[in-house]
């Protein structure tokens, strides 16, 4: 009975409110009403998809809550008012069922259109020597397990341990680091994520979504950092008492500086390993000498050393 009035209310109040909300949303700082992004293309596209769902969600929210508030204000019990004894309306039932389904079909299509650009690694902006490449190699596969994209890419093994992340870098030399992952800007980095102990979850919000680290499984993720900087995150799956302190960060630097870091890290690790090997050798020699002299009476031998 009040349909014309309702639609005029919708026009006059709800639609401007909706537009205002969207305007606020667009200018709002990252993280308040949309996920963080800005570090890597996959994170940016995830946020675009989020905005699409958000807009639809706002429409549904305003529609449903609007009708609800309208009903409880408009149809309060009053003297002389009699409730309409309606039992249902099949056409209306079919209408809103189909309507809801249409919204969801639209979302499904949108998701699958955007999925490849989120899930599959994009090609690097630089080649293996750090030189910029033109966008000639933009084609990439969209199969289930994305192969490394054409051109250069870097695969880093991410290993979760209570309560630290360990990163193993590619190359002949033994290069690894803890907590901070160092990467060159513009390089597509693919991640093989696993765990040594309990379940963890790898997450740097500005560089894309989470990937759980489970012992016995290798999970995949990727990013391509656009600008130098420090991108912070922390473990997102309960992993024990110090779950709150399991931080991770990606430190992106220009290729030549990254290369210098890589060489220095490789050298430092080599030196540390040499020192460790030397001291192990010395201790072994010491122990076998003691064993030969004291017959093990003084406690400790090579198999069962004592500190």
């Amino acid at each position: 009975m009040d349909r014309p009035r309702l639609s005029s209310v919708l026009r006059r109040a709800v639609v401007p409110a909706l537009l205002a909300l969207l305007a606020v949303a667009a200018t709002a700082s990252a993280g308040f009403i949309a996920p963080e992004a800005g570090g890597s293309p996959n994170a940016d596209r995830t946020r675009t998809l989020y905005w699409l769902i958000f807009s639809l969600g706002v429409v549904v929210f305003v529609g449903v809550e609007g009708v609800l508030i309208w009903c409880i204000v408009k149809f309060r019990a009053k003297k002389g008012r009699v409730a309409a004894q309606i039992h249902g309306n099949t056409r209306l039932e079919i209408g809103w069922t189909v309507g809801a389904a249409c919204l969801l079909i639209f979302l499904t299509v949108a998701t699958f259109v955007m999925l490849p650009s989120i899930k599959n690694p994009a090609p690097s902006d630089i080649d293996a020597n750090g030189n910029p490449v033109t966008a000639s190699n933009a084609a990439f596969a969209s199969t289930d397990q994305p192969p490394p994209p054409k051109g250069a890419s870097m695969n880093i093994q991410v290993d979760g341990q209570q309560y630290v992340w360990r990163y193993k870098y590619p190359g002949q030399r033994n290069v690894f680091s803890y907590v901070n992952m160092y990467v060159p800007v513009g390089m597509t980095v693919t991640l093989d994520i696993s765990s040594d102990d309990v379940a963890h979850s790898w997450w740097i919000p500005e560089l894309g979504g989470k990937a759980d680290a489970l012992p016995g499984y290798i999970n995949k993720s990727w990013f391509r950092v656009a600008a130098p900087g420090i991108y912070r995150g922390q473990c997102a799956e309960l992993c024990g008492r110090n779950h709150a302190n399991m931080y991770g960060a990606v430190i992106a630097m220009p290729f030549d500086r990254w290369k210098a870091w890589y060489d220095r890290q490789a050298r430092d690790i080599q030196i540390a390993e040499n020192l460790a090997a030397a001291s192990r050798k010395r201790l072994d020699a010491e122990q076998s000498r003691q064993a030969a002299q004291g017959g093990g009476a003084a406690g400790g031998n090579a198999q069962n050393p004592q500190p």
Partner: protein
Amino acid sequence: MASLDYATRTVPRPQIERHAVAPDERSWTSWLTTTDHKKIGILYLWTVAVFFILGGVEALLIRVQLGAPDNTFVTPEKYNQLFTLHGTTMIFLVTVPVWAGFANYLLPLMIGARDVAFPRLNAWSYWMFLFGGLALYASMFFTPPEAGWFSYVPLSTSEYSPSGGQDAWIFMVHLTGLSSMLGAVNFICTIHNMRAPGMGWGRLPLFVWTILIYSYLIVLAISSLAATVTMLLLDRHFGTNFFDPNEGGSALLWQHLFWFFGHPEVYILILPAFGVFSEVLPVFARKPIFGYKAIAAATAGIAFLGLLVWAHHMFATPSATVVLAFFMLSSFVIAVPTGVKIFNWLATLWRGTIEFRVPLMFAVGGIATFVVGGITGIFLAVFPVDWQLTDTYFVVAHMHYVAFGGTAFAMLSATYFWYPKMTGRMLNERMGKVSFWLVFIGFQVTFLIQHSAGLSGMPRRIYEYSAGSGWHTYNLISTIGAFILGTGALLTILNLVRSLKVGTPSGPDPWKANTLEWFTPSPPPAHNFDTIPRVRSVEPMKDIRRQVEQLSGAEQRFEAGRPMVKA
């Protein structure tokens, strides 16, 4: 009222009536030995109230710890124990058994039966539920569990959680699970076999429909959980390796098995809440429910689809895209029947004459809140977006909008609605309204802002965050809201206790409601009905009132919430 049926018949048909009954057992031991569904229902509900208070206190302690950055109010160990106990309590000891409690009390009354099908089994269900809860809380004196209410392996295996608290959690799941399953079998048998004459499937009250579906879901989902936690128990103590990746087991297997139970569980706790909304709205809008068949069908549809969406809790795990896509689509599909229910409730209010009593306020507030949880559920169903949102405070906000907005609001609505039937006294209306506004506003203040905390990168289950994280304001607001919410809930608890003695006597049908339980005195006698009326529609009590009006010529209209004054 008992002779009503005779009065309306031209030729009275002989019926069995009581001629003498034993006086009501008043001794406290009657509560231990009772097999009366009403007494068992009340035992369930008071026990749930105690666990609800415990879970609420745990929630407040969590909020105090998170109210300030780098807080040292509790240790990391205590914090993990707190959220494990809070989640476990609210899921297993509050939101599931609360419906066992209401169903126990109301189901036989609503369908015109004198008790449930297996009264002794019913008593056993209650006592197992109580001892399950006690097994969990007894661990407070030793080491409570700390691997979360979901107890993911490997964290919950003996290697990483050696304490007995994890075993207490397993025993709690077993005891309450068996309790729920036996209770469910009881409800199923009662509903299928003991309905009043004339009450076909199309005349079953919608709350009873949801309890029927809830019961089938419990049988399917909780039996799976029982097997799963048994596997964990075997892994922990008997050397099996179902979940140990170093011995050929799988850490992912637990997640699949757990969520195969865990998602139907969400519908186990939400469907009866929908049933409460479907009962309360028509009474206070003075209108029949809109789309009875659609709502009943949507209930069954949600339950079926609810068994097919479990892996949307696991989108970030190593899974093939086809798996992710399937569970995204199934989660979308389940939004349709849920939406249908909401639209039907709106249409029920449409052109009604709505009386603002506390049960209606909690129902409408619950629907308004649940809608937000439903919409954010779509965000989480889109798996690329879920990769950003999962395991953050966005999910904490989402699931509280669903579980508190749906289940807890419905629970409070049901309490205010049926308390007069159970005790013969009304709850205090003014206290109820203040309680509603505190709960409603407190809830929104607590949880709306948590979406933002999650979007700006705050993971779940962290006991502290640094001052530089930018999450302090969000968390402070949330903590303040939690205390407003807690005050509101406390007010209702006080109301419950206070009104037992001083509440206004309610009479048999204070709300002028539609279903058969209002045909009995308040509280109903042990045998419920002297004569079981024949059911002619989905609103038998409305028919009876109309009949009385026609016979007596006296207007039976009176304002809801005021006891009927005898002319």
